[in-house]
């Protein structure tokens, strides 16, 4: 980062988001539900009914807690239905509300059918629909964060959706490994391990994208949760690779570690954003740099568009005598 920019007594320039713990938890649960629906659908197509049934159950659990988390974070929870008052493409939160609604309805039908066998005809339509809706459900949350003035979120707008997508895949694989007997969980293991690797790559790409702003990940909660996330990911992936195919208890532990890693990762991204709003150097610094380097014109102009000032047309206060 460039040297400390000028500021108004070091005050924050933008507001810190008022969202609380429910929001990063929802990012975790939504991604888990979304990618699990895809896993469940594909496993069903492949004829692995045992895995499909359990993955539908996982997806159902994720989709059930999601609206509860979101509604509880609202300032006026009783007005949650206003979220569906309109559809606005300029608002990822509006688009996401519709995705979540569709995903919730279709996943519920698919999961209920998988476990009880009712609504067979409806389920035939609901399964692929839930699988498809689960994809944007896993990534729109990154678009939601990117479309704010929060420096580290907006700067990472191209990479963050991939971080969330890979994270959702880790979640889906890990959760299914946790609840499925090892012989039937082979695709889930492959998913969890492959996605864990991709997640690290995506993370590195995104860190390069945000450049100097990545500094926020070296401090405070963002740093703490990122360290936890990395440690859990390494331990979980290692254990899953070594013993996950043979031992049910090892697979359970590995799945839990990977889920813990993903939850911490979402917390880290969330806190990095909050931290980058507090210090004006992250907000003013990059803006002033871009102006100084001639890349942006900025919000100010010192040159008047009239050749000479006519005091009579200036402030009334300065023309009282004239």
């Amino acid at each position: 980062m460039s040297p400390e920019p000028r500021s108004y007594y070091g005050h924050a320039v933008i507001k810190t988001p008022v969202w609380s713990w429910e929001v990063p938890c929802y990012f975790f649960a939504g991604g888990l539900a979304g990618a699990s629906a895809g896993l469940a659908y594909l496993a069903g197509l492949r004829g692995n009914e045992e895995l499909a049934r359990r993955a539908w159950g996982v997806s159902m659990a994720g989709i059930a807690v999601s609206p509860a988390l979101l509604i509880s974070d609202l300032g006026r929870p009783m007005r949650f239905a206003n979220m569906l008052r309109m559809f606005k493409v300029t608002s990822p939160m509006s688009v996401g509300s519709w995705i979540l609604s569709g995903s919730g309805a279709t996943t519920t039908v698919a999961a209920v059918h998988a476990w009880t066998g009712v609504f067979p005809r409806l389920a035939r339509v609901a399964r692929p629909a839930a699988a498809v809706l689960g994809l944007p459900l896993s990534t729109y949350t990154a678009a939601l964060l990117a479309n704010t003035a929060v420096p580290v979120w907006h700067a990472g707008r191209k990479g963050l959706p991939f971080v969330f997508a890979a994270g959702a895949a880790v979640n889906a694989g890990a959760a299914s490994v946790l609840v499925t007997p090892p012989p039937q969980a082979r695709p889930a293991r492959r998913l969890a391990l492959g996605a864990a690797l991709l997640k690290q790559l995506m993370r590195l790409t995104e860190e390069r994208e945000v450049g100097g702003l990545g500094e926020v990940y070296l401090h405070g909660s963002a740093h703490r949760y990122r360290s936890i996330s990395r440690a859990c990911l390494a331990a979980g992936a290692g254990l899953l690779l070594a013993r996950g195919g043979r031992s049910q208890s090892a697979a359970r532990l590995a799945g839990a570690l990977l889920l813990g890693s993903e939850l911490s990762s979402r917390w880290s991204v969330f806190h990095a954003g909050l931290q980058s709003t507090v210090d004006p150097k992250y907000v003013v610094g990059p803006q002033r740099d871009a102006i100084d380097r001639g890349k942006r014109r900025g919000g100010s102009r010192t040159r008047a568009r009239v050749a000479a000032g006519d005091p009579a047309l200036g402030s009334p206060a300065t023309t009282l005598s004239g």
Partner: protein
Amino acid sequence: MTLQTHAWPASYGEEAKPRRGFFTDTSVCIGCKACEVACKEWNHVPMSIEGFSGNSYDNSNELDADRWRHVAFVEQRVSADARENGGELVRAAQAAAAIAGGVQTYQEGDGIRWLMASDVCKHCTNAACLEVCPTGALFRTEFGTVVVQQDVCNGCGYCVPACPFGVLDRREEDGRVWKCTLCYDRLKDDLEPACAKACPTNSIQFGELAELRERAEHRLAHLQEAGQARAQLYLADEDDGVGGAGAFFLLLDDPEVYGLPPDPVDTVRDLGEIWTAAALAATALAAVLAAAVLGGRR
């Protein structure tokens, strides 16, 4: 790709009024805070006591849900002759930093320059708050201003980090977001907003935006001629990051000195890029799922 909303004036048809706004000429602000008081009184904004901030005469610190006008007080040390020569101000500001950093002591004969400015919601042309609002509670009025409908807002909080100026905030005991309405009720009755009405020096000028902008150009030229080299119009142009603002300012130093962002951007301008990335990532997720499930032993 740029996605924009243009609710004004097109969607109002015949009912559209000329765009109204504020020109805040900070060069004549005396820091009396009459605007803060008038705003609170007229709009029934709840009391909020910050106490002694220690930051010059500022005791209200920032704009938030319970403060829709905020007067900033900046004290700058300048050498005595700097008043004669505007260019000297740059050097003086650098010297002031050296003094604050303990490198240099306060010099005999140095003076103080006091900058005061009344901040307010900018009522941006491209208003990020309005664009991200999922409920449509934030809307653009027939005057081109941006207002929250309190009977619709569900307190989702998305507008709070979307605003590049940190204007919007949630009132915790109430759960909804509140901000300056540019006295929508008064405008409807052909009255000027309470703050502008109360301003004793006309630092806050209300009117039709086109006319205010013209007036501001003359004032800027006048100040530049008088040697105020850093005098600048802030948010007066269509080609800045928010498409120009309904409330714009004449500042005597860079925006960040007053706590304003030097290059505010409505991030919705990057929405094409953002949605593309999200869609590609969703597609990649499908590929990864398919590879894992279909691409090996069952």
